[in-house]
């Protein structure tokens, strides 16, 4: 007979693994990917593929030639980063090469520079996205007009996003704002992972069911954004007013438009819930979510950018270690 194995207890394991978690996140992103392909055509698929493949390639190269460690490409985390990065860019032809640069920054600087999976303080996909937003401001804010997209065409007619229109403060913006229902289903312009709240909620439901994430961060994030914008809206609802003889938009948009436009849904459900960069205790997750929601609305309302989700999450990522320090689990009998 063989020698017996000796080890400390426990002698069984739940069979949970990082790989399984990452693949569940990838599964949860599929509805959003399908919606993006349906609305933006083949370009969405191409950009996603290029983004995912370049993330995997960069991770493999860095692990093999710079860090000289066994490759962890198979754990699926690079695919999550690649998909999320792709979901954060507009579906235009120039993105086919720009996204490769984003992937390099996301994986190289956002993740591997800190030592790889689990050690990065910031969400890698958002690092890549913000880098692109600052480096390629025109390309990153040129959105395809969803009503004029041809499925196999790469060059599309461009159109504005609801948040972009509002930022311009043109009087006509109010009439051109999409219906709430359309924003929920996805009939609006935007980065292609941001268009359909329904698809994101489907994926989130899957993650909640599989216990990959808990409700705390998404609910705190979206809830705070809704409540905060609701207060602003109640004080001064958006309306057209003549300022110096020119009709302009004045006031704040309603909470439903706030949470359904831009990247709040994608950010709250998939980016802010990233385990590595969010707090561990439930109480800490609530604080994190509330902070993200507040910062998003503040940046959107008073900042220079029409959208603030990426910045909000990155800012909260930076205080996650502090939150972890304050928010301890409730100890037994204390």
């Amino acid at each position, binding site marked *: *007979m*063989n020698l*017996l*194995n*000796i*080890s*400390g*207890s*426990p*002698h*069984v*394991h*739940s*069979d*949970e*693994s*990082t790989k*399984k*978690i990452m693949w569940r996140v990838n599964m949860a992103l599929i509805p959003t990917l399908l919606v993006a392909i349906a609305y933006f055509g083949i370009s969405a698929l191409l950009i996603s593929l290029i983004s995912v493949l370049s993330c995997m390639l960069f991770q493999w190269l860095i692990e093999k030639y710079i860090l000289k460690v066994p490759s*962890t490409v198979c*754990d699926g985390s690079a695919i999550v980063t690649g998909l999320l990065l792709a979901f954060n860019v507009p579906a235009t032809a120039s993105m086919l090469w720009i996204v490769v640069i984003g992937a390099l920054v996301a994986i190289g600087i956002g993740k591997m520079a800190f030592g*790889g*999976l*689990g*050690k990065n303080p910031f969400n890698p996909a958002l690092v890549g996205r913000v880098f692109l937003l600052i480096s390629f401001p025109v390309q990153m804010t040129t959105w395809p007009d969803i009503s004029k997209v041809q499925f196999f065409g790469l060059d599309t007619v461009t159109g504005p996003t609801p948040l972009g229109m509002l930022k311009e403060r043109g009087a006509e913006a109010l009439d051109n704002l999409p219906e709430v229902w359309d924003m929920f289903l996805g009939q609006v312009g935007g980065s292609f992972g941001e268009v359909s709240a329904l698809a994101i909620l489907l994926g989130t439901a899957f993650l909640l069911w599989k216990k990959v994430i808990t409700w705390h961060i998404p609910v705190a994030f979206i809830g705070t954004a809704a409540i905060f914008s609701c207060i602003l809206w109640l004080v001064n609802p958006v309306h057209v007013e003549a300022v110096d003889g020119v009709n302009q938009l004045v006031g704040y948009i309603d909470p439903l438009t706030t949470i359904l436009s831009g990247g709040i849904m994608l950010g709250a459900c998939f980016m802010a819930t990233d*385990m*590595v960069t969010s707090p*561990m*205790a439930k109480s800490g997750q609530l604080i994190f979510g509330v902070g993200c929601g507040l910062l998003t609305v503040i940046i959107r309302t008073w900042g220079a950018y029409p959208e603030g989700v990426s910045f909000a999450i990155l800012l909260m990522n930076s205080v996650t270690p502090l939150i972890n320090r304050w928010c*301890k*689990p*409730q*100890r*037994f*009998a*204390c």
Partner: protein
Amino acid sequence: MKTFKMGGVHPEENKISNDAAIEVIPVPSQMVVLMNQHLGAPATPIVQKGDKVKVGQLIGEAQAFMCANVHSPVSGTVAKVEPCKDAFGLAKPAVYINVEGDEWMETIDRTPDIKRECTLEPKQIVDKLKEMGIVGLGGATFPAHIKYNVPEGKKAEYLIINAAECEPYLTSDYRVMMEHAEEVCIGVSILRKALGVPNAYIGIEMNKPQAIAKMQETAKQFEGIVIEPLKVKYPQGAEKQLINAVTGRKVPSGKLPIDVGCVVSNLGTSFAVYEAIQKNKPLIENILTVTGKKLPSQHNCLVRIGTTYNDIIKHTIGELPATTGKVISGGTMMGKAVVNLDAPTVKGNSSVLVMDENEARRNPETACIRCGKCMHACPMGLEPYMFSALVKNNRIEEAKEHNILDCIECGCCFFSCPANKPLTDEIRLGKNKVRAMMAAKK
């Protein structure tokens, strides 16, 4: 349904030996009786080479405070008194006996009659528990006469009997409930009398509906025995968690159950108490589960304490399958891997659990992704991931400040870790380092 409030996991139950009735394993031809079968100091051998002993005769006397008597489980001649390696490879003082026949002490009542009346006073009960060498059979083997001798200034309000059997695979308590429900209830009544508490609560997990029904029916004939069905959640049977589940009370860090008015005993102990008090039978027999997914048959068996693992295996499943990877004494969550199958079993052993090569293997460790699953699984509200980092970096002082000593080593953190980090191992190491540090400071 009652349960503890914080953390916990639900491993695969695998109670595959549930329906195997308790069978008696033959007495081996040579017996090694360890003197250290309980928490505390070893008993002092009071026999010498050549002495004749009978079944149930005192051979190791408890001379220290934290100690328990050890009795001979066989009759025969003492061959030698010298250390023997136990199941985990550590040398322990022991008495070797060449078995001759099976002659029991005359004082022991071996009739099958069930004796209900107990006229002993509480003090006499505790003394008799000491005389009979009764220890807790839940795993910690805490001497019963110390536990039931409530210190002055403290008052017991609850007696809780742990029949949760929350560990996967183990079924010995279940079989005792199914086959000896009445004796168990008498034992519980005696313990209740010893403590002078109005009610005893027997906590049983809901995955044993037949045992709950059987115990509820039997308990009707007794005063002050309440059956408490508990949710199936590990570690329901851990002392602090069980108290929390049954009474809602919480034993503070570093305190004992009696500090919140509770005394907890294992179900197996209450059966041993019945035999000791009513039948004058010292703790010389054990009920063990012999189980494993790949075994040809499943067993629950009554063995003389001291029968070796190999003898038990020989008389139940014949031999270990060729693909055996690990043999565990206890359950899969807190049991210990056996090093030496020639070692004698001791008081408090509950199983011989045979794991296949594939089951016995750990998955490769990957990077921590800070998911917090270890923290949410911890029934003590601790942060295992942090202990792991602190211990690795030898930051023992900080580990102590974060209450590493509160860890009950239930294994929930390692069980739920997606990165397969051996958190429980690291915490165990850390606890030892903290204790060493505290000892050095004194």
